[in-house]
């Protein structure tokens, strides 16, 4: 996947972001909501987008960068088509979610925080998803899979390949 930012292709998205900045720039503490919006629109926060935010809000780029890197929800690199989150919340952990995570890592051959070479899957370890009753739990985009065993992982991932 090319990491170069395509201004032409992203024209509409940039416009959307600029509108949002315009609407919110007089709000106190606008940087976080704007970063959330940008993350939603682009799926990540490349330097070019950080620049737009910096200028739009009159906040130094170093500060935008500092905030964007502090929070784990903001990503500086693009994510895969499907984001897999294996819950490592306490309730899931004591019921063996580490083994689920190990299995996903083994099958996709990536570590937590990485994306597969074909851009298909990104892998994250999440905290409690509020579905402890189904522990151990994994989510793929918005779909939740519960009461997992390591053996079930392969079949689930197959559906997305």
């Amino acid at each position, binding site marked *: 996947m090319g990491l170069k930012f395509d201004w032409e292709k992203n024209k509409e998205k940039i416009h959307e972001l600029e509108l949002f900045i315009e609407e919110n720039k007089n709000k*106190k503490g606008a940087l976080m909501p704007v970063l959330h919006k940008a993350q939603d629109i682009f799926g990540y926060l490349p330097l070019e987008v950080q620049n737009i935010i910096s200028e739009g809000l009159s906040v130094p780029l170093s500060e935008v960068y500092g905030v964007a890197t502090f*929070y784990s929800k903001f990503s500086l690199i693009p994510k895969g088509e499907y984001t897999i989150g294996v819950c490592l919340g306490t309730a899931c952990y004591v019921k063996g979610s580490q083994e689920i995570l190990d299995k996903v890592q083994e099958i996709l051959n990536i570590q937590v925080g990485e994306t597969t070479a074909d851009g298909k899957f990104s892998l994250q370890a999440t905290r409690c998803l509020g579905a402890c009753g189904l522990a151990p739990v994994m989510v793929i985009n918005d779909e939740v899979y519960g009461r997992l065993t390591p053996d079930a992982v392969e079949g689930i991932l197959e559906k997305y390949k």
Partner: protein
Amino acid sequence: MNLYRAHVLVCGGTGCHSSNSDKIKEKMEDRIKEKGLENEVKVVMTGCFGLCESGPNVVVYPEGVFYSHVKLSDVDEIVDEHLLKGRVVKRLLFKEAVEENIIKSVNEVDFYKKQTRVALRNCGIIDPENIEEYIAYDGYQALARALTEMTRDEVIQLVKDSGLRGRGGAGFPTGLKWDFTKKASGDKKYVVCNADEGDPGAFMDRSILEGDPHSVLEAMTIAGYAVGSDQGYIYIRAEYPIAVKRLQIAINQAREYGLLGENILNSGFNFDIELRLGAGAFVCGEETALIESIEGKRGMPRNKPPFPANEGLWGKPTLINNVETYANIPVIFQRGVDWFRSIGTEKSPGTKVFALGGKIENTGLVEIPMGTTLRDIIYGIGGGIPKGKDFKAVQTGGPSGGCIPKEYLDTPVDYESLTKLGSIMGSGGMIVMDEDNCMVDIARFFLDFTVDESCGKCTACRIGTRRMLEILEKITSGKGEPGDIEKLEELANNIKDSALCGLGQTAPNPVVSTLKYFRDEYEAHVYEKRCPSGHCRRLVTFVIREDLCKGCGLCKRNCPNDAITGEVREAHVIDPEKCIKCGTCIEKCPFGAIEKR
């Protein structure tokens, strides 16, 4: 208004939602229409019922018939049999709702009978997306009373008299905090709700926000009036999309009804609330870091004092309370201080909500009067440990808390008693562990979390927790050396004494408490290279017991690394050099002949 003969409540909490309860609700409505019952039966989607383990859950009123594990394909039968013909669908009843052929209503099931629902009073009962339902359950009456009949000081006095203490973990008296904020001087003041819910294994606040968002809005507005603020913020985790959506709907509805905004209920009092989303940093649950984050900065804690009550958001006096703390406020106004104080203990009145999880039969949300014993929660409400296993410990307080062993199961739960045991009340995570869980590994798990989440501002926390994690990893992988345990203790003391914020100060707790109660497990790892629970893979060996092996060959056929040899009908053996400790053979052996040692 239409009077319905029956109400069907479908749980729309996160747990049930993830097993498609939204589709169950739609299908239920369709089928009801098909059968011409739409003017007689109403379907409502509510917040979490609390018994997430058995979801998706559905309750039919007026009888209170409790169906669990409902599937889409069961919907037609419920409508056709129960709603149309009045015959309960027995095969779908919650397992404990039938006793000797008598069907118990939902309130008589042990799980609920032993609870006292104050903060969760409306969860699983009302439609959180409809303000009318909240109002029908006496919602916004407390606000009306405060604004029209009470002075600001009277409001604060009432909260003080109730004895309510902060449910975010530390248990600080809520009325006192309101008083400090009121007395602080400032031209502008803020009211903040901490909905960052950082404990990685807990979801109490989320369920309140999803199931009863107006109770939090109402309480914040009352607080705004009391302390003299016209602006509130709810700082909520971005990972809670359903809660965010329902809160936004609730805020919009409250504005429409004149319960938020300008001149609320014609009292001349103005107050509005805005949502701010967190972005995945645990430390932002700490109040000063949370304030930094709302201001649009990196969420690094500030030095205290000054406390937020004097200098908080944008340097202005700021009241900050937890979701569950707020959820208690309206009902204290409605039912009075005496009623509230009649629940719980002298020093900790009221109830506490816990997210009960781990190795327990009934996983879910439970609300109990303070002073209930751990045993009552785990065995009485939680239904005990599954699969006949032995209880080992219960963890409270998440990464800031500790593990409590069997000897203390009869401890009544309140702020002081849990602290005395080396744990804390915390925000309400309660994870049960059985004989298969390794306590050294659990300590490692929490340290791994803290290292990940330390903001890096102070060295003791940033470097110290990392050093502790390294030692714990060494121990659990079988490379522990004499002196390691003592080093852990020394580091723990250091970090406790010199970290700036609560995250660092409490980070060693999981290690300290497991060392206190399970030191023998640490010693077995370090000195005998043995994990007593058999969890730490690198420390166990798989052995076939000659006396039990029938020589069926199943293990041999399934071993992925050809580590097992033996002739048919003769005892088999595992070659420890080849064994990769995958555990397959144990699962496959029909005679229980394989052991972890």
